[in-house]
């Protein structure tokens, strides 16, 4: 029987949750890197026991940890993230130029085929890559250098590059997203980039339909249809059917279209999940009810999934990295909250149970299926 491994990054360490394919009984390991912020940890699709973790601290800076045994032991690897050339400036919150400064790694995306190749999305926004298992990192500077970088500005949480999607069919195509610059695409393995934000409308920037400046929170892709992307923006849920050439809104009947996470069912490319959050000034679910919303039609028509989730007095948030799906049948769906709960559904969202209830605030959730 398969093993399910859920990788959880929190404000105060990493946790690894394991179960068999029934996904009913869970072992909890951790905290790993106790006391450190773990923005993200993720396993290599090419070697599931190769894990990478972003470990950071306001005091001690950024570490990258690597495991070759599924998280039983870890080894610090390279943590030197140096922008290529003269870093230049981006826009600060008040509109003034601000020097590009490395702060932390928000997201680690291992290559689909090579365990030693990993992409890192960092704050201040840039994309780095290692091809030696994390020992050294090089910036893919064409992203910051494509032309609009000087006008990018941070979102409230910082100017982080938080989403990296590797196209499994059109190899060489990479999608990324930055708060609050927007979405970008490369068709040549990261050498050159262009914004893909047409169709996005954001009333918090002077030109609502500007080429860049949109606060994209998350983008999700089904690997069988990489030209179809789903986006949770600061406000609005959107989709594109042409790899980002044009987006259109699919918020439909959601109670609020603000939120952070979005993900796609492992076997149904038109089934998507979001967790609506009340507003950008009230980062908690509407009416104190924690509800996952599922659309089986690729958006617009949404149903609330509530079985097993708190339906009163719940005021947690679900952050952008904190949802994942597994590839079992039926598809498992997982998400973590700022209240320290990690919820799992073994039936595509129909029913939910908490795996753990009292972790530190959850920053990221990833899941692996091991044979």
């Amino acid at each position, binding site marked *: 029987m398969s093993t399910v491994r859920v990788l959880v990054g929190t404000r105060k360490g990493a946790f690894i949750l394991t179960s068999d394919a029934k996904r009913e009984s869970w072992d909890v390991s951790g905290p790993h890197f106790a006391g450190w912020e773990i923005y993200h940890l993720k396993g290599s699709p090419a070697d599931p026991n190769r894990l990478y973790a972003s470990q950071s601290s*306001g*005091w001690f800076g950024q570490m990258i940890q690597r495991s070759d045994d599924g998280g039983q032991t870890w080894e610090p690897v390279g943590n030197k993230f140096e922008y290529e050339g003269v870093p230049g400036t981006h826009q600060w919150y008040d509109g003034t130029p601000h020097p590009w400064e490395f702060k932390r790694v928000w997201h680690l995306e291992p290559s689909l085929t090579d365990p030693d190749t990993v992409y890192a999305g960092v704050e201040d926004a840039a994309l780095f890559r290692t091809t030696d298992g994390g020992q050294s990192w090089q910036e893919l500077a064409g992203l910051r250098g494509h032309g609009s970088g000087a006008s990018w500005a941070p979102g409230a949480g910082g100017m982080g590059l938080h989403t990296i999607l590797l196209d499994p069919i059109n190899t060489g195509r990479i999608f990324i997203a930055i708060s609050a610059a927007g979405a970008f695409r490369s068709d040549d393995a990261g050498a050159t980039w262009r914004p893909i934000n047409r169709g996005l409308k954001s009333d918090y920037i002077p030109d609502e339909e500007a080429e860049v400046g949109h606060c994209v929170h998350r983008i999700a892709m089904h690997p069988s249809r990489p030209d179809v992307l789903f986006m949770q923006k600061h406000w609005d849920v959107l989709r594109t059917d042409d790899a980002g050439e044009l987006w259109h809104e699919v918020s439909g009947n959601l109670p609020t279209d603000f939120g952070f996470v979005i993900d796609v069912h492992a076997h149904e490319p038109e089934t998507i999940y979001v967790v609506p959050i009340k507003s950008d000034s009230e980062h908690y679910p509407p009416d104190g009810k924690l509800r996952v919303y599922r659309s089986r039609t690729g958006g617009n028509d949404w149903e609330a999934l509530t079985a097993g989730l708190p339906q009163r007095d719940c005021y947690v948030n679900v952050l952008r990295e904190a949802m994942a799906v597994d590839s079992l049948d039926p598809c498992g769906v997982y998400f973590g909250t700022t209240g320290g709960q990690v919820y799992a559904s073994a039936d595509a969202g129909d029913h939910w149970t908490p795996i753990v209830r009292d972790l530190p605030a959850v920053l990221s959730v990833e899941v692996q299926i091991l044979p």
Partner: protein
Amino acid sequence: MIRVILPQHLRTLANVGREVTVEVEGPATQRSLLNALETRYPMLRGTIRDQVTQQRRPLLRFFACNRDLSYEPPDDPLPVEVTTGAEPFRILGAIAGG
């Protein structure tokens, strides 16, 4: 031998106890001490000084002999008591963040 007291998180990271000792070749300064420390414990690179600028991280302090040495030039000699091992060089995290 120079004695260095590390903050808790760096002890865990380097898998060492509260105090470590390092040998510094040539004049003992903050820079040469930290170079020696990072050579012996490579996992500490970037945690005390920024990897690129080599500046002390803003929320860390260097204390020795009842003095705050955090703002001393990095190439100034360390106090004799530190270089002789009579007093430790303390690296500590600022009390911040609640």
